[in-house]
């Protein structure tokens, strides 16, 4: 009599706990960065724009200073997905990390309407062109990140050998402007919103941009997810991306309002007036990925930078199947 009661009790508890688990939408632990990811941040700043959030998935965004930490956190099992430069994901994939690019955030594109990450030097300093950086230092955000790649590309274009002739120095975005002004580094990497803030302060001059350094428009930031998470929670990812595309469209149509919301929610520290006037990166309203550009970048990483040991098939690293049709 007692034993069957115990069994019944256990069965009921187990069943109800299953029920509870089924009702809790899966949590997406998402690693975000400092700049250019407006649509992603908006998903947390304006949950009213994301109908699936709270129902089909929950979102927890964790801030990272630079890419390497994001990937390390993923390897340590602390993230399910995040933002990253597409080329960094290719690099990580080549090292054996199990992740896939599923959507685009923004691109580096030439043209007056779009912003491209800019490398700046002191206005009254001796550096007039990239060739003058010989014997100096360039500040980038992290090792093996996009900013690292562009810096090297820009140096190679001018015939300067990175690491040997010019040192690459990792540091955070917020400190770049002052580091250049005080002579700590000779050139720094500037993205919005820091770019406009520094230009407003004055004293810095543009050296080259990311697009100029690489020579063609290319994917800047993309959304990635771990391979395992994609297999176990495909519906959550789809719901997440459906909301993401909706928010992207909202952002492109109501940029000023979106920026105000982001500023209020604390995602951006730059003063609002400057932030509103910023030029923006190119963003695809459907979050489609420019695969060809990533392919070219991977060849560049292989041949000119020796970051990859053997060629990679970029197509395998991208899966646009989770985006809404």
């Amino acid at each position, binding site marked *: 009599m007692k034993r069957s009661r115990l069994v019944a009790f256990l069965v009921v508890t187990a069943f109800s706990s299953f029920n509870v688990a089924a009702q809790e939408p899966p949590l997406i632990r998402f690693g975000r960065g400092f700049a250019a990811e407006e649509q992603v941040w908006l998903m947390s700043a304006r949950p009213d724009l994301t109908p699936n959030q709270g129902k089909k998935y929950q979102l927890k965004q964790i*801030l990272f200073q630079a890419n390497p*930490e994001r990937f*390390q*956190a993923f*390897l*340590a*099992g*602390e993230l399910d997905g995040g933002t990253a430069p597409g080329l960094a994901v290719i690099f990580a994939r080549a090292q054996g990390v199990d992740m896939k690019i599923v959507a685009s955030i923004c691109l580096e594109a030439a043209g007056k309407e779009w912003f491209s990450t800019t490398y700046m030097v002191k206005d009254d300093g001796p550096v007039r062109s990239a060739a003058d950086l010989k014997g100096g230092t360039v500040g980038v955000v992290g090792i093996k990140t996009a900013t690292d790649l562009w810096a090297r590309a820009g140096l190679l274009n001018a015939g300067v050998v990175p690491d040997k002739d010019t040192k690459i120095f990792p*540091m*955070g975005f*917020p*400190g770049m402007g*002052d580091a250049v002004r*005080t002579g700590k580094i000779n050139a720094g990497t500037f993205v919005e919103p820091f770019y406009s803030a520094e230009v407003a302060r004055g004293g810095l001059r543009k050296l080259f941009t990311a697009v100029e350094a690489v020579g063609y428009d290319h994917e800047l930031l993309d959304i990635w997810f771990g391979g395992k998470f994609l297999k176990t929670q495909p519906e959550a990812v789809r719901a997440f991306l459906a909301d993401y595309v909706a928010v992207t469209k909202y952002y492109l149509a109501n940029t000023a309002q979106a920026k105000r919301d982001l500023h209020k929610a604390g995602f951006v520290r730059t003063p609002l007036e400057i932030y509103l006037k910023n030029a923006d990166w190119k963003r695809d309203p459907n979050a489609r990925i420019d695969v060809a550009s990533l392919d070219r970048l991977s060849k560049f990483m292989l041949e000119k930078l020796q970051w990859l040991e053997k060629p990679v098939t970029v197509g395998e690293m991208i899966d646009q199947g989770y985006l809404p049709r």
Partner: protein
Amino acid sequence: MLLVLLVWELLWIRGLPAYVLGPVEILKDFSIALGSEELYSHIGASLMRSLPGFAIGTLLGIAAGLAAGIARGFDRMLSPVIFLTYPVPKIVMLPLFMLWFGIGDFSKILIIALACFYPTFINAYYGAKSTPAILVWSGLNMGAGRWRIFSRVVVPSALPLIFAGMRVSLALSFIVMFAAEMINARSGLGYLIRAAENGLRFDLMYVSLLSIAILGYAGDRLLRLARGRALAWQEQGA
């Protein structure tokens, strides 16, 4: 000491580069910071890492050191490993620990524990080894069991060295905590000083510096106090 401060303040009045602040200025900024909550949260975060790390590392170090000091088999196995890895800066394992144990506090506590283990191990080891044999013999003569000899003879005679080791470990715990936070953290005094460095907030830099100086000094004093009471039968030289 006072002379140095006086000279420093005079130089400051004369005019120093922007990144060097005078003592009065620093004290002013510090008292402002004491009023705000931010400083306390950073100090708390730092202590939450260094104290558990110190405790774990020191306890393990003392235990293992004493054990190796009295048991030859244990000694032969463990000591070479410890002495071999002594000159390696334990902080280099931080990236690996972060990969294994996550980017949170746990990996930092482990690194601090690892670093603190060494000085206490070495000192406990030598402390146990240098127990005057005659005391051990008298104990054995009077019929004391092994455990009693250990706790009543070996440990007390090793205590002075153990405390010396703990002193080094305490200073080390602050250093490693600070370094780990400077390398990779979102809170704590090491993080504060880097964030201040980035934003050219020299006032915050010096506040962080002063905070850790005070923590280090206070900790050392506390330890000296504890040593004084524990070693009441010994005169102090150092």
